[in-house]
């Protein structure tokens, strides 16, 4: 079913069951956010993507990433209330991740350049804003190597039972989605160190560059049914081989 409503006065249509943030972005309306990624389910962690939703007599401030669109609502993305609360949440995040460029930029766009709060007393992973994108991505990819540990002010991202996880294949997807890039991944030409473990790389049979970790290849081949030799060569060498093949056929 289609629903129809307005965002900042613009008439928009969306499918029932869609989330407001996705619809807004599709229509070119920018709502800042830190914990949203289109590949995973929204959880509304960062509380930055706030909007004001008016429905009948009721006006509520809400996060847009996990708000299911409704027919006839009136959405405002830039009211005084929204700006005020977004700025406060960004100030809290800035105190948590003072060195993160992304957080600093977003905060300063909201007029927050310094924080009135003290540095965090408990900081197991500096600059982590607990958006859980790493955990959600790891789960979505089927690895389940990461988790959140504890709750409240002691919540952190970690490994189950604080031990290097057998499930981690060293794919570093966690880092690739991390908005503050706070996850430590160290690559050498032959090895990757991540989450307390070292993973050997498969090296490209042509150029010798690292292709993928061995564990990741085994997972991909057994779970995704890729051909055994799929990761023998790196993407670059695969491309140049393909273009050579292509050239020989065309000319």
């Amino acid at each position: 079913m289609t629903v129809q409503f307005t965002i900042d006065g613009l008439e928009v249509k969306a499918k029932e069951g869609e989330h407001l943030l996705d619809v807004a972005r599709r229509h070119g309306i920018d709502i800042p956010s830190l914990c949203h990624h289109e590949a995973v389910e929204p959880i509304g962690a960062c509380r930055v993507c706030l909007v004001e939703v008016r429905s009948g007599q009721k006006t509520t401030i809400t996060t847009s990433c996990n708000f299911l669109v409704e027919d006839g609502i009136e959405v405002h993305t830039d009211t005084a209330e929204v700006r005020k609360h977004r700025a406060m949440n960004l100030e809290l995040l800035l105190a948590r991740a003072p060195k993160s460029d992304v957080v600093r930029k977003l905060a300063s766009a909201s007029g927050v350049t310094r924080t009135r709060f003290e540095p965090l007393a408990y900081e197991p992973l500096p600059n982590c804003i607990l958006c859980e994108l790493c955990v959600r991505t790891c789960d979505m990819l089927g690895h389940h190597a990461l988790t959140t540990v504890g709750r409240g002010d002691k919540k952190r991202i970690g490994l189950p039972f604080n031990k290097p996880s057998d499930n981690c294949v060293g794919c570093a997807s966690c880092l690739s989605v991390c908005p503050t890039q706070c996850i430590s991944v160290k690559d050498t030409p032959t090895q990757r160190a991540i989450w307390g473990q070292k993973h050997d790389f498969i090296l490209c049979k042509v150029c010798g560059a690292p292709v993928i970790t061995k564990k990741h290849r085994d997972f991909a081949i057994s779970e995704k049914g890729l051909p055994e030799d799929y990761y023998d060569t790196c993407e670059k060498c695969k491309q140049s081989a393909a273009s050579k093949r292509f050239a020989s056929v065309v000319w």
Partner: protein
Amino acid sequence: MQAFKTPKQLQAHRKKIIESRPADRKAIAVCAGTGCKAFGSLSVYDVFQKTLKSSGLDKKWELRATGCHGFCERGPLVLMFPSGTLYQKVKPEDVDEIVEQTLVKGKTIKRLTYQDPVTSKWFRREQDIPFYKHQHRLVLKQNGMIDPTSLDDYLTIGGYGGFLKALKMRPAKVIDEVKKSGLRGRGGAGFPTGTKWEICAGTKATQRYVVCNADEGDPGAFMDRSVVEGNPQSIIEGMLIGAYAMGASKGIVYLRQEYPLAVQRLGLALESAREAGLLGKNILGTGFDFDIQINKGGGAFVCGEESALIASVEGRRGVPKRRPPYPAISGLWGKPTNINNVETWATVPLILDRGHKWFSSIGTEGSKGTKIFSLVGKVNNTGLVEVPMGMTLKEIVFGAGGGIPDGKSFKAVQTGGPSGGCLPESKLDTPVDFDTLVQEGSMMGSGGMIVMDESTCMVDVAKYFVGFLKFESCGNCTSCRDGLQRLYELLSDVCEGRASMETLDLIEELAGTIRATSLCALGTTSVNPVLSTLKYFRDEYVAHVKEKRCPAGVCKSLITYTIDEKNCNGCTICAKKCPEQAISGKKKKLHIIDQQRCIKCGICKDVCKYDAVIVA
């Protein structure tokens, strides 16, 4: 217990049981609720059992270990039927005398009866004691009358009458009955129960669930615990009625594992209900299938929030999820799920049995029926009180509660658990119902009620509750997780004399964002203690900030202990008790506290008989 194959069989058995147990039969009810048990009521029960047997009185007197009577402070409680005589603080060595004097000769033992600490009056009968007199006990009353492990006992007091009546109605009619009664959820939010049932029943689904939320987590609150421990069959009956009305075949009780007695008693009750054919396949031959399982919660406060509860039952972390979709549409494993609190479920059978008109005649326009409160703190009579909706805070605190002990004056009452607001004396005439409490900046919550006297520092209280909630937050939302952490730091600044007036502004600003932008009710209500104390006790905050003074003499950083020249007669007791040897002075001479050594523990003040220790 025989398995009943038809409603008629059950009805016949009920009739037989009720007839065989006349209302005026002699019985002794020893409270075996958690509070009385802790006071040793089980040994009292054992001695009663032996004595009755050896004296042959066990034929005449029925002995029962019952659920909580509510007056926990005075335990172990022994109540006698039909006279209504209540003995309190009974010890095993008192039993012989009770048997001889009261059971045989019919005499009252005065020292075991209740004496009102305020008026010094003695009371023999339970119903005359002010603590009980001000109450209107519908749910709790049954607790004191029955042995929670006996299904027959429950039948005696009219149990399963509501379910039998429901079976004669169409499910929609049952929902209608609950709707008309005006019953609102007792878990805190106060959503109309019948409407919730209707939404759940209106979904298209092959599988529906009913859930009993028994994850009671408010510090100092034990209403649900007492009902599960004292009358588990009433919850089963309520859930049966709900399941029948909504077409659910599975029920789950989410019960704290910290309540071992509740887990055990509910387990026993489920077994006996199954044996009697009241749970399982084809209940009473009606073709209705329903069974209940217990899910033990791990003790996270946030799991009382329904979406977190669902996650926990499904085996995931107890983290709340955004609603809608509401559980009534998509709950456990994506199926329509109706979640009600213990008290709500226990009230349902009464409504079906006695009718919606009877129920809605109690209470106020918007809030019907009664509500159980856990009345604790600086109040003479602590325990569980069940009062009609709309009773004023004053009647509860000063009527049932008997006022403030030790001649101190009332300061505030916090309703609604850790995230409730603190209401001052000027709000004591507030009627206690769902809507008025919210208007005044507090809430009904699940029924916690903490009374505070003049010796309580309101900033310290706010800090305490924020500290509890920051620890219990699931940590999902920035506003709640980091916000409460920062709020705690700011309140600590106030309590420790580091704050400025800007700190108070920041507290208010931050609290506003936590309230407006957190996902679940834990976050949005968490700032009530802060905002309500700022509103009603702002001068106390200002005294901390501007004068660096704690008016109640609680915040250690802002107080000093000194000895008053005039009152000190040199008895040396303070010097002897001081753990830091900070007090010096010769016998019969003025004593002095070394401020460098003093850790402000307050022991000297507590032990001084001459009021010579001054806190300023």
